[in-house]
């Protein structure tokens, strides 16, 4: 009986420790830091796969995207602010894709927090979004990146398989041209 109780106490202590560690790890990405290694669902759209420089199905990591710089928009189709920002992010995408100096070097993806694929597809269709939107239906990624509010933008430089965060901020990006100049300068791409 005594052994059974002490076993249970041990388990409770382990759970407390595990919980404390999981809480302590929750922090938004920091500029200068490394973006957490997260597994994302590959888009099933061939054009989007090609845009990211990927093939096949399953999951991928950010450092596998064929680009020098990756912009991640953390959003939700249920977020009114994200809905309002959608046209501006589309404009950012157009500015990048229409400039030969940035096209193929800077890529954008959206991660839909607590959104199913059905829901990210609704958002995509509603706002005619051309870059890939990846669902995070179970908050798995949201927890890893610090449970940020939406929309949240993270920009990272990819080099040698590493992902260095060069921008990490809650809320609208502001003027898109100024934003592009800022990330081009921070990333050192030419």
């Amino acid at each position, binding site marked *: 009986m005594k052994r059974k109780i002490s076993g249970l106490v041990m388990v409770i202590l382990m759970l407390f420790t*595990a919980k404390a560690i999981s809480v302590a790890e929750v922090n938004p990405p920091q500029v200068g830091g490394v973006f957490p290694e997260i597994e994302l669902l590959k888009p099933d759209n061939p054009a989007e796969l090609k845009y990211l420089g990927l093939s096949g199905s399953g999951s991928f990591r950010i450092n596998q995207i064929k680009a020098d710089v990756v912009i991640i928009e953390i959003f939700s189709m*249920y977020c009114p602010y994200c809905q309002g920002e959608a046209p501006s992010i589309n404009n950012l995408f157009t500015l990048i894709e229409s400039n030969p100096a940035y096209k193929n070097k800077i890529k954008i993806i959206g991660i839909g927090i*607590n959104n199913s694929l059905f829901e990210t597809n609704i958002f995509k269709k*509603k706002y005619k979004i051309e870059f890939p939107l990846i669902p995070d239906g179970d908050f798995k990624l949201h927890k890893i990146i610090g449970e940020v509010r939406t929309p949240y933008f993270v920009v990272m430089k990819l080099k040698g398989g590493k992902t260095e965060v060069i921008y990490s901020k809650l809320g609208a990006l502001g003027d898109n041209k100024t934003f592009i100049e800022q990330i081009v300068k921070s990333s050192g791409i030419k």
Partner: protein
Amino acid sequence: MKKKIILAALIICFFTSSAYALSEAYKKNIYNPGDLKPVDSLLKVKVGQAAPDLTLKAVSGKIISLKDYYGKKNVVISFVPAAWTPVCSDQWPGYNIVKDIFESHDTILLGIAVDNIPTLYSWTNQMGKLWFEVLSDFWPHGAVADKFGVLRSDGVSERALFVIDKKGIIRYIDVHNINQRPPLEKLIRELEKLN
């Protein structure tokens, strides 16, 4: 066996939390009540029954009755527990961008909360212009929620969805875990069945 059950319960308690993705649209004005008992009421209606009629004042100033839609439109009623709380604040804005899907199924949406009109006005203003009516079930407090059997013991409603067809018959009920948002695809599938 008993030990295994205790262990399972402990693990669930420690690692189940009501995560939510909160829009910056609400700034820091959202009150987080924490994890609540998933369901805290007993349904008084069931699928196949006639829906109880309701008449409530909307934020728009209109007086809305369920019977106004009989023979004309299918109706989805979305009860949300409380204004200015996390999950509720990120539910109706999603419905706000799928007006076309509702319309394609000849369906309108009524949002209902037990908060008063001024509170609902301030809160829903943060969501942008809503295409659907938001009704206040404030006084007699929660009377409509109670008719459906979704009034919780603390005076807020459940997070519940009711699909009512043009004949006024309840076709679908989802009294959802209050800590989680109901998946949109499930609701849309139910609307598809109405055709």
